[in-house]
C-alpha cells in the first residue's frame, strides 16, 4: 500500500458493523434481482402467447407505424403582434446607427435588427474616426445574448429590487456627504461628454469627497502622461497613416489594439501601390504582432533594445550623439534614421512601449519630422485610465478611507495584478456596487451587483477624437432587469430625468451648435464644424502654455528621457504582455465566436499561450509537435515574475519572436461568471505588475503536454508561389507583369499555352455575360489579417461554433478562413528560388532535405495573410462529383449548395482544391454536446432568419452571401432601377474596413471589381488547376526599397 488513506463512498462504510456495506461489498445490489422468479415460472411462460418472434414483429410494426405517423406534419402556430410597431415590417431588416464604447473597443457602427432583434454589426461608413468594427465589435452582438448575463440586481448574492438598491445607495451616499471618507466611482474610459458632465454634477451633488477614478484594464498610461506633459491634455495623439510614406513602429501594434486601435483602414489605403508608390513600414518589436506581420522590414528586438534604439534614433535625427547602450541595434538605427531623414515630414514614428520616456521621445521625433500623419491638435480620448489613481485607490480602500465604491465597466478583481489586495480592500468599503454584465470576479466580491445593460440596450455618446462625436442608441429594449450606470447615477442624484433627456440636453447646449439632433442620431456621428467655443479658449491657452514651456524646458525632459532610455538594461528574459485580436482585454471572454476565432498569427483558438522564439525553445527544451490525431501539442512552462508564478502555461514556438523575449496575451483565464467551456487559458493580468507590459520573467519547463486547437499546422508556403504571389515594389514598377505575376502554362500538342486559353479547357463554357456576374477581389496588400470578416461571416451565415475538441480535429466550420504563411528563408522570394533550384533527391540541393528545411519558418520570417473562402469556380470540381447534384452552378457566378439535397458523401470536399467546404459532423444546434449560443433560446436570437441553420450530415460552404445579393436585386426590381456599383456586398466585403475585399458585378464594366479584375496584379488561386474561380487575389507587393 502506497497510502494509508481510507477512501469511502458513503457514511455507512465508516460503520464496520453495517450489514448493507458487507452485502454491497460482495454484490452489486443489496437484494437479488428476481430473475428466477420470472424465468422459473414455466407455466406462465408457456401460457403466454407472445413468443420471441411475435415480440420482434410487434416491435417492427410499431416502429413502422410510428414512422408512418410521423409523416403527418406538425401544427405550427403563428402569433402576430397585437399592435405592430410602425417601423417594423416582419421580414425586413432595420438598421440603426450606434456606438460601442465599452472601455476597450470604441467604434461607430450600424446595427442590423430583424423583428426587433439585433443580429449583426456593420461598419458605419459615415464615421471618419473608428467607423469600422473589428472582430470583437462584430462579435459583440452575441455578447448581448450571453446566457451568463446578470439578469437583475442583487445584494450579497440575493436578488433584490432596484428600489431597494437605490434606497441603500442613496442613504449611504447621503451619510457620506461632507464626511472625510471618499465616494469613489471606479469606471472604464467612457470618452463621453455627457457622462463626464454627469459625473461632474454627481460630484457637485455629493461634495468634495467624490473621486472619479478611470481604469483601463490594459493601460496606456505612459502615452497619456507623455502627451499630457507635451500638450497639456491627458489624451492620445492621433495618427493618419494614409498620409505617411514611411511608418516606423517601435513595438506599437497599431493594426491591433494599440492606443484604442482603429488605424487599419488608413494604413491599408497607403499600402496599395498607386502610381508606383506605396508606404513603407518598418517594425521593431519583440512579439510577432499583426503590425509586424504586415511590415516591409521587421527587426525582432527586445523591449530594452527598442528603447535604446529609439534613444539613438532621436540622437541621429537631432544630430546629437547619444552615448551608451548596446551597439547591437546600431545598424538598424542607422538604416531607420537615414530613411526617416529622407522621408521627412512624410514619415511617422509610433511606439507601443509603455514607458513615458519612450512616448515623450516619439512625440518629439514626430514634431521634429513635422510629420503630416501626426496630429496632436485633435487628440483621441479613447483611453483615459490613470494607474496612479488606481494604485492610490487600493491603498485608500485598505486604509478604510473609502465609504462607497461604485464600479462600472471594470473587473478589477480579475484584471488587477494585485487583485487580492483589491478584494481585501473592498471588504473595508461600506457599500460597494458593481455594475456587472456577468457575475464576474468583481461582482462576486462586491456587496451589490447592479445588472448592467449591454451597449445595444443603452443610450450614450462619445467623443473619440476632438470634434468627432458619436451617439449610442438602444437597438432593443433591455432583455432583463438591467440598467446602465448613467441612469443609476441620475436616480441617485435624485434627478427625474432619463439619461436620454440628459444626453439630448447636453448635445443641444454643448455640441450640436444648432445642428439637428435627429440627423445626428440617424447618422450616429456628428462632426463639430469648429471646436466648441469654451474648449477653444482652453486649448489655445494650453497650447500657448505648452509652447512657452517648450522654449525653456523641453530640452531637459527630453535629454533625461533619452538618458534613461539608453541606459535601459534588461534583466534576463523579458515577458511582453499583449492583447489578442480575438480577445482584447477579455471582457467578452464568454463569447463563443471570439473563443473559436483563430488568432491571425498563431492560428490557435480557444487558448492563450506563451510565445517563445525557436532559439529560446531549444534552450529551454520546449517544443510544439504534431501528434497522431492531427493536432498540435505544446510543452508546459511555469512563468515566474517577482515571485508570482503562473503555472502550466502552454508554449507556442513563434517564428519572429525576438530572442530573449516571450509573449503572453491578456484576456484569458477568467473563471467567474463564465460557462465552463469558455473558461480557457491563463490569466496574464496576474503578471501585469505596476501596469507594465514588460516584465522580467523566469521560465521553467514542467511536465505534460498541452493540446492546442490550432487549425493551421502548415506554417510555411514551401515555395508554392501560385498560392501567394509576391513581389517587391522595385520589380513591380520596373518589370512586366508577366514576370512577377506569371500565368501558368500547360502543354498542348507539345506547345506551351496559357492555362486560361480555351484550348486548354475540357469544359463547355457557360454564358455569364447577361445579368450579374459576381466576383470578389481580395488585395493581399491591403489585407492586414485582422479577422473582422471571419466574425462577420460567422454572424451573417449562422455558422455554428464547434468547440475546442472539434477545432483540434480540424473540423472548424468557418466559411472564411485567413491563412497565414511564413517564409522559410528571409523572404518568400528566396523560398521560391530554393525550391526551383532543387536538384535530385539527395545532396546539397536535394529535394528531400530541402523540403524538410522549408517546412520550418525562418527566425524572422516574412508573413502573408490570405483570406480563403469558396472560390466559386466557374469550372467547379466539386459540382462534377456530387452524386445528387446538391451543388450546382449559377449564371451569376455563385456556386450553389442545396443543403436539403445533400446526402453527405463528402466527395465535393475531397475534390475541392481549396479545402473550403465544411461538413456538419454533428448537429450543432439544440445539442447539449455543443452547448454554445445555438443551444439556448437567448443565444439563438442572433440567428439570421434569411439563412438556413444546417443539420447534421450536410456539407456547407461560403455562398458568396447569396441572401445579400438576392436582396439587393429584389430591392432594385421593386424600385424599378438599375443597381449601382457598391450596392452588392457580402458580409466579408462589408466588414472589411481596409478595402482589401471588394465585391461586385463584373458585367458592369464601370464597377470597381471589374476594373480590379483587369489590374496587372490580379491572379487566381491555383490558376493551373483551371477552375476559373470567381474570387481573385492581387499580388502582394512589398516595399523593400531601402532609402
Amino acid at each position, binding site marked *: 500500500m502506497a497510502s494509508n488513506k481510507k477512501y469511502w463512498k458513503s457514511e455507512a462504510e465508516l460503520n464496520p458493523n453495517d450489514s448493507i456495506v458487507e452485502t454491497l461489498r460482495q454484490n452489486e445490489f443489496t437484494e437479488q434481482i428476481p430473475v428466477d422468479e420470472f424465468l422459473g415460472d414455466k407455466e406462465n411462460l408457456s401460457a403466454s402467447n407472445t413468443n420471441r418472434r411475435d415480440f420482434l414483429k410487434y416491435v417492427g410494426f410499431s416502429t413502422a407505424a410510428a414512422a408512418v405517423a410521423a*409523416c403527418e*406534419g406538425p*401544427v*405550427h*402556430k*403563428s*402569433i*402576430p*403582434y*397585437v*399592435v*405592430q410597431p410602425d417601423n417594423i*415590417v*416582419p*421580414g*425586413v431588416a432595420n438598421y440603426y446607427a450606434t456606438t460601442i464604447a465599452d472601455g476597450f473597443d470604441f467604434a461607430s457602427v450600424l446595427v442590423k435588427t430583424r423583428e426587433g432583434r439585433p443580429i449583426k454589426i456593420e461598419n458605419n461608413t459615415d464615421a471618419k474616426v473608428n467607423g469600422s468594427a473589428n472582430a470583437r465589435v462584430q462579435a459583440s452582438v452575441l455578447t448581448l445574448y450571453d446566457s451568463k448575463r446578470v439578469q437583475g440586481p442583487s445584494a450579497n448574492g440575493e436578488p433584490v429590487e432596484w428600489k431597494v438598491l437605490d434606497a441603500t445607495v442613496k442613504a449611504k451616499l447621503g451619510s457620506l456627504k461632507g464626511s472625510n471618507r471618499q465616494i469613489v466611482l471606479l469606471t472604464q474610459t467612457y470618452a463621453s461628454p455627457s457622462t463626464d458632465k454627469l459625473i461632474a454634477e454627481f460630484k457637485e451633488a455629493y461634495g468634495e469627497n467624490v473621486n472619479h477614478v478611470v481604469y483601463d484594464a490594459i493601460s496606456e498610461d505612459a502615452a497619456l502622461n507623455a502627451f499630457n506633459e507635451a500638450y497639456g491634455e491627458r489624451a492620445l495623439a492621433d495618427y493618419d497613416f494614409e498620409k505617411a510614406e514611411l511608418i516606423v513602429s517601435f513595438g506599437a501594434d497599431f493594426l491591433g489594439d494599440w492606443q484604442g486601435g482603429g488605424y487599419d483602414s488608413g494604413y491599408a489605403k497607403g499600402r496599395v501601390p498607386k502610381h508606383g508608390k506605396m508606404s513603407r513600414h518598418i517594425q521593431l518589436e519583440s512579439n510577432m504582432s499583426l503590425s509586424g506581420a504586415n511590415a516591409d522590414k521587421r527587426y525582432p528586438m527586445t523591449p530594452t533594445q527598442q528603447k535604446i534604439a529609439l534613444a539613438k534614433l532621436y540622437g541621429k535625427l537631432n544630430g546629437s550623439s547619444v552615448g551608451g547602450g548596446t551597439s547591437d541595434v546600431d545598424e538598424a538605427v542607422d538604416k531607420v534614421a537615414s530613411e526617416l531623414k529622407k522621408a521627412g515630414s512624410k514619415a511617422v514614428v509610433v511606439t507601443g512601449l509603455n514607458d513615458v520616456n519612450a512616448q515623450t521621445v516619439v512625440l518629439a521625433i514626430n514634431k521634429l519630422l513635422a510629420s503630416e500623419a501626426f496630429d496632436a491638435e485633435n487628440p483621441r480620448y479613447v483611453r483615459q485610465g490613470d494607474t496612479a489613481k488606481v494604485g492610490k485607490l487600493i491603498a485608500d480602500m485598505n486604509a478604510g478611507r473609502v465609504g462607497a465604491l461604485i464600479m462600472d465597466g471594470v473587473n478589477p478583481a480579475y484584471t488587477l495584478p494585485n487583485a487580492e489586495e483589491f478584494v481585501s480592500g473592498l471588504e473595508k468599503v461600506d457599500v460597494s456596487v458593481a455594475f456587472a454584465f456577468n457575475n464576474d470576479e468583481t461582482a462576486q466580491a462586491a456587496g451589490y451587483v447592479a445588472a448592467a445593460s449591454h451597449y445595444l440596450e443603452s443610450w450614450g455618446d462619445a467623443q473619440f477624437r476632438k470634434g468627432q462625436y458619436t451617439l449610442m442608441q438602444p437597438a432593443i429594449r433591455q432583455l432583463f432587469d438591467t440598467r446602465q450606470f448613467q441612469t443609476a447615477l441620475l436616480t441617485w442624484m435624485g434627478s427625474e430625468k432619463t439619461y436620454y433627456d440628459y444626453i439630448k440636453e447636453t448635445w443641444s447646449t454643448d455640441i450640436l451648435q444648432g445642428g439637428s439632433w435627429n440627423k445626428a442620431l440617424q447618422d450616429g456621428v456628428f462632426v463639430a464644424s469648429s471646436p466648441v467655443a469654451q474648449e477653444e479658449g482652453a486649448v489655445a491657452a494650453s497650447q500657448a502654455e505648452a509652447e512657452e514651456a517648450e522654449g525653456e524646458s523641453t530640452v531637459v525632459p527630453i535629454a533625461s528621457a533619452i538618458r534613461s532610455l539608453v541606459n535601459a538594461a534588461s534583466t534576463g528574459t523579458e515577458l511582453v504582455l499583449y492583447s489578442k485580436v480575438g480577445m482584447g482585454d477579455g471582457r467578452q471572454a464568454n463569447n463563443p465566436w471570439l473563443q473559436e476565432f483563430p488568432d491571425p498569427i498563431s492560428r490557435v483558438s480557444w487558448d492563450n499561450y506563451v510565445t517563445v522564439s525557436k532559439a529560446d525553445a531549444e534552450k529551454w527544451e520546449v517544443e510544439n509537435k504534431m501528434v497522431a490525431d492531427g493536432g498540435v501539442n505544446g510543452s508546459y512552462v511555469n512563468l515566474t515574475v517577482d515571485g508570482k508564478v503562473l503555472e502550466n502555461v502552454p508554449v507556442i514556438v513563434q517564428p519572429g519572436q525576438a530572442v530573449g523575449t516571450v509573449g503572453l496575451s491578456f484576456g484569458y483565464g477568467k473563471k467567474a461568471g463564465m460557462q465552463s467551456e469558455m473558461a480557457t487559458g491563463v490569466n496574464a493580468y496576474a503578471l501585469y505588475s505596476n501596469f507594465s507590459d514588460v516584465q522580467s520573467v523566469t521560465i521553467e519547463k514542467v511536465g505534460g503536454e498541452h493540446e492546442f486547437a490550432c487549425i493551421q499546422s502548415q506554417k510555411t508556403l514551401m515555395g508554392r508561389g501560385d498560392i501567394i504571389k509576391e513581389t517587391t515594389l522595385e520589380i513591380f514598377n520596373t518589370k512586366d507583369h508577366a514576370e512577377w505575376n506569371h500565368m501558368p502554362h500547360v502543354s498542348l500538342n507539345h506547345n506551351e499555352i496559357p492555362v486560361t486559353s480555351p484550348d486548354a479547357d475540357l469544359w463547355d463554357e457557360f*454564358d455569364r*455575360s*447577361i*445579368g450579374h456576374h459576381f466576383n470578389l477581389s481580395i488585395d493581399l496588400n491591403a489585407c492586414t489579417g485582422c479577422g473582422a470578416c471571419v466574425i462577420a461571416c460567422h454572424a451573417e451565415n449562422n455558422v455554428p461554433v464547434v468547440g475546442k475538441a472539434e477545432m483540434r480535429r480540424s473540423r472548424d466550420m468557418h466559411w472564411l478562413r485567413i491563412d497565414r504563411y511564413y517564409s522559410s528563408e528571409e523572404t518568400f522570394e528566396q523560398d521560391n528560388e530554393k525550391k526551383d533550384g532543387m536538384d535530385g533527391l539527395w545532396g546539397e540541393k536535394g529535394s528531400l532535405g530541402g523540403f524538410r528545411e522549408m517546412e520550418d519558418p525562418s527566425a524572422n520570417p516574412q508573413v502573408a495573410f490570405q483570406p480563403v473562402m469558396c472560390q466559386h469556380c466557374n469550372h467547379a470540381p466539386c459540382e462534377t462529383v456530387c452524386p445528387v447534384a*446538391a451543388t*450546382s452552378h*449559377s*449564371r*451569376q457566378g*455563385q456556386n*450553389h*449548395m*442545396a*443543403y*436539403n*439535397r445533400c446526402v453527405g458523401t463528402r466527395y465535393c470536399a475531397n475534390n475541392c482544391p481549396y479545402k473550403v467546404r465544411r461538413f456538419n459532423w454533428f448537429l450543432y444546434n439544440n445539442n447539449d454536446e455543443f452547448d454554445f449560443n445555438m443551444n439556448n433560446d437567448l443565444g439563438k436570437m442572433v440567428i439570421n432568419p*434569411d*439563412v*438556413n*441553420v444546417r443539420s447534421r450530415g450536410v456539407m456547407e460552404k461560403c*455562398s458568396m452571401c*447569396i*441572401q445579400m445579393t*438576392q436582396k439587393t*436585386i*429584389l430591392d*432594385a*426590381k*421593386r*424600385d*424599378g*432601377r*438599375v*443597381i449601382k456599383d457598391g450596392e452588392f456586398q457580402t458580409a466579408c466585403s462589408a466588414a472589411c474596413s481596409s478595402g482589401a475585399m471588394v465585391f461586385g458585378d463584373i458585367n458592369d464594366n464601370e464597377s470597381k471589381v471589374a476594373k480590379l479584375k483587369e489590374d496587372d496584379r490580379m491572379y487566381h488561386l491555383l490558376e493551373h488547376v483551371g477552375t476559373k474561380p470567381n474570387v481573385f487575389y492581387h499580388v502582394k507587393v512589398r516595399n523593400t526599397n531601402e532609402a
Partner: protein
Amino acid sequence: MKKVLYRHLFSKILGLSLLFFSISFYAQEEAAADAGGGDPAKGKQLFNQNCAACHSLDRKMTGPALANVESRLSEDQGLDKEWLYSWIKNSPGMISSGDSYANAIYAEYNQAAMTPFPTLSNQDIDDILAYTAAPPAKPVAAAAGGDVTLTPAQSSGISNEVILGALALVFGLLVIMLVLVNKTLRRIAEANGVVLENEKAEKRLPIWKAFAQNQFLVLVSAIFLLLASAYFAYGWMMQVGVDQGYAPVQPIHFSHKIHAGDNKIDCKYCHSSARVSKTSGIPSLNVCMNCHKSIYEYAGNPEGPSAEDLAAGHTNEFYTAEIKKLYKAVGWDEENQKYTGETKPVQWVRIHNLPDFAYFNHSQHVSVAGIACQTCHGPIEEMEVVEQFAPLTMGWCVNCHRETNVKMEGNAYYEAIHEELSKKYGVEQLTAAMMGGIECGKCHY
C-alpha cells in the same frame, strides 16, 4: 320544367315582398323627413361619409350614439338646433369658448376632440339629423327574405333526388322488361322445339383457368399490376408532407369570404408586408381594429345567412361573437370605447408551412411580378375557412417559373437584361427560368 317554373314563382314572391318592405321603409323615412325638414336618404349618405367612423346611431363609440340626438338634446339639455350647427361646424371653438355641455361631452369622451366639419351646410346637417331621427331600419326584411330564399335551395335538393329516383325506376323497368322478354323468347323456343345448347357450354374451360394457362397474359397483367401499384404507391409517397387542402380550425373564425369577397377589401390592406417583405404577414390586431372599432357586430348580407351558412352554424350572432373574441384579444373595452391594455395575442394556426430550407419572397411575386394572390392561394375571397390551395411542392414552383412570362415592362432593372436575353433566346417574352429562376441557390440558401 317544373323546377324552373317553381324558381320563377319564388323569385316573384321574393321580389314582391322586398318591394312591399321597401315601400313601407321609404314611407317611414319620408315621414321622418317631413318632421325634421331634412332628407333622411341624403342624410344617410352624409352620415356614412362623415360621421360613421366615430358615431353609430344606437351605440356609444368614439363619440356618442346619435339616434334622435336632436330631440334628446332639446329634451335633456335644452339645446336647440343652432347649438348643434355650431358644434358640428366648429367643436373645438365651442369647447374653448367655455360652453358647458360642449366641455362636458369633451371630458366624457376622453378629451378626444370631434373633427370640425365647416363644409357641412345647415341643410346637410338637417339631412343628417333627419336620418338620425328616423328609427333605424331593423333587418326584418332580411329575416323574411331569408325564409324565402331557403325554399329554392331545398327544392333544388329535392329535384336532384327525384331525378335520381326516376332514373333508378327507369333502369329497374328496363331490367324487368329484359327478363320478361327473355322468358317469353324461351317459352317461344320451347314451344317451337329448339334445343338450347347449355350442356356444350359447360364443357368449355372456365375463363380463369384459361387465363391461368395463358402465360403471356399472366405476365402482361402481372407487369401491369406491378406498374399500377408502383404508380399508386409513388403517388401516395409524393403526397406525404403535401398539405394541399389543409384547412385547420382557427382560434377566431375569420371569414375571408366576408372580408375579401363580400366587402371586397384588398388583400394587401391587411397583408401589407407582402408588398415589401418576404412574408405576407399575418395582420396585427391593430389592423383589425381599424375597421372593427366601428364594426362591432355582423349585420350579414341583406338576405340573411344562406342555408349553407346556417347549416355550418354561421349565423349573424356567431360572427358577432367572433368579433367579440377579437375585442378580448386586443383588449378593447366596448363599453367605454378604450383599450384596457390587457392583450391576449391570437395564436393562429399556420396554414402554409413552407419548409425553412426553401426561401420564398412575397414582395418579389406580389410587387415586382404583379401576380394576384389568388394565383397561389386560390379563390380566397370565396373561402369561408381558408385552406391551402396550391400543393407548394418544388415541382409546382418550378413549373410556374418555366411557364410564366416575367412582367418586365417599365422596370428599369430589367431593361438591359431583357434586351440581351431576348436576343439570346430569340423570344420576346422571357420566363423566370430563362433568367436563372430555377437555379437551386435562388431558393435554397
